[in-house]
């Protein structure tokens, strides 16, 4: 061995004169980590989420002019497709604000479905990252939710233009849409954390997901009004009232399109669903995330 190596051996017995982090990795494949420490690490990396979302959108050309134009055109075209579909299938007798209501519900539902779909691929799609570095894995689905939100924002510009063009009222009760959206985001995030976890165990889960989402769309007050269906009664009305998205999207559409907040109970129910799903989603994800590196 050279002198340099001998010097190193002498230095090797010295404890560094700087503050040292301490990590203890114990045998426990599943189970919750120390939640306050985990949340602190998550919070310390909040800038990562923002930067990752921004960089991903930039890499997909969504920050260019045509990319942004597509973000506006896409939801508008989708709205037109569903409008034509409902027009053909329906009786033709609709309320004058139907198109605005359809757009509001569709844009919110698209955000929700993007949370589920993008989160499902978030862990599997980052297998290299997970196998090579240690960080709170919850950052991955959270980043996807932020990306879904960034894509959702331009669609709201489309809605506001349609709202103005159709001469719909602007009023204070419209602000009730904000808590309704928070409920929806919490619910979408909670289910997103669950889909991210399930996808690790069942790799074909993402193939089933679009069908589930499509059926969920038809069961939600997007193409139809919640009050109308509930007024009809029967099993269908019961099923619709059991749908967690019904109170959230019902409040959302009511507030944004008609400028009214007539059913505070819907918001309370939506809030319970949102908070419950968020909590369960986080706990399940944290409970299983230790196993992700072994499963990928």
């Amino acid at each position, binding site marked *: 061995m050279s002198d340099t190596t001998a010097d190193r051996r002498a230095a090797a017995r010295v404890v560094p004169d700087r503050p*040292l982090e301490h990590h203890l*990795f114990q045998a426990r494949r599943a189970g919750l980590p120390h939640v306050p420490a985990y949340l602190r690490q998550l919070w310390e990396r909040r800038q990562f989420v923002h*930067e990752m979302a921004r960089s991903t959108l930039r890499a997909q050309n969504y920050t260019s002019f045509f990319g942004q134009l597509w973000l506006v055109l896409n939801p508008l075209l989708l709205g037109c497709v569903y409008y034509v579909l409902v027009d053909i299938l329906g009786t033709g007798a609709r309320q004058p604000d139907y198109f605005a209501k359809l757009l509001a519900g569709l844009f919110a539902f698209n955000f929700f479905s993007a949370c589920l779909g993008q989160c499902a691929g978030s862990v599997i799609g980052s297998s290299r990252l997970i*196998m*090579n570095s240690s960080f709170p894995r919850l950052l991955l689905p959270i980043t996807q939710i932020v990306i879904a939100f960034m894509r959702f924002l331009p669609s709201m510009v489309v809605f506001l233009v349609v709202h103005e063009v159709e001469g719909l009222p602007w009023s204070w009760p419209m602000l009730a849409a904000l808590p309704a959206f928070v409920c929806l985001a919490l619910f979408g995030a909670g289910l997103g954390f669950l889909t991210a976890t399930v996808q690790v165990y069942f790799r074909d889960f993402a193939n089933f997901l679009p069908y589930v989402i499509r059926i969920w769309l038809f069961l939600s007050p997007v193409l139809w009004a919640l009050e109308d269906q509930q007024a009809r009664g029967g099993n269908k009305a019961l099923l619709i009232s059991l749908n967690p998205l019904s109170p959230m999207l019902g409040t959302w559409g009511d507030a944004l399109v008609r400028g009214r907040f007539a059913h505070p109970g819907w918001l309370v129910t939506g809030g319970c669903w949102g908070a419950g799903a968020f909590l369960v989603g986080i706990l399940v994800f944290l409970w299983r995330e230790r196993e992700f590196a072994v499963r990928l």
Partner: protein
Amino acid sequence: MSSLSASETVAAGTGPAAPPPPGAGGTWAVQVRDVHITYRVPRDPRANTLRYRLTRPSGRRDLVREVKALRGVSIEVAHGSVLGVVGANGAGKSTLMRAVAGILPPSSGEIEVHGRISTLLALGVGFNGNLSGRENVVLGGLAAGLSRRQIAKRYQQIADWADLGDFIDMPMKTYSSGMYGRLAFAVSTHMEPDVLLIDEALSAGDAKFKRKSYDKIQELVAQARTIFLVSHAVATIRELCDDCVWLHRGRVMMRGDPEEVTAAYIRFQEVGEDAVVLEDV
């Protein structure tokens, strides 16, 4: 690129002046105590699908087989050491690296690390090949828990060291493997790691990169930073390391002077697979 374990107990911020954490060995940077790691590998590639589970609900126990990657590994590494890790393919070297980094949870046993961990593992670094080197550096730093200000402070050093020129602003998918390796090495070594884990990452570069990376490793060691170096290049192990461990089928075969350990490892490779664990002799 990482400095925390998302999945394990972490208590940060203790130093020489602070009360020692439970089980702290004083001069030890890393203590691996009787660690076993077992992978559960599906026997049938389709076994981890919903369709498979739904159509074959019975016989669940036969779905996976267990691969014991580490079987009772115990090593202690002092601050300022450069530990070479040698072994044949499938010996458990990369698994050991990932376990020390807190990426893979042990099936049994425990690992204690005193200091910030930075990894430079076999599959490389980088979040998105569509993003530029600059963006990947920022993302890597943020994922490691650094603030934008801290990254900005280190960025110029990283860019200068990697010496990529205009390529630093081009998508990483346009990089050669050597350029990729240079940037990855620059990021992991400039994050001020206390424990740096390098897995087969020095082989991609040219002679100049190797010389620079050797010098950087010496510089880190002089600051009492600890390095784990996995390499099949015995000459690299002998030149850089002051300690060496040889793994075989998840067990420590030998530990000690790099010259002696690598010589025994080479002899073993020539002799065949029929050796006993030398620590037991």
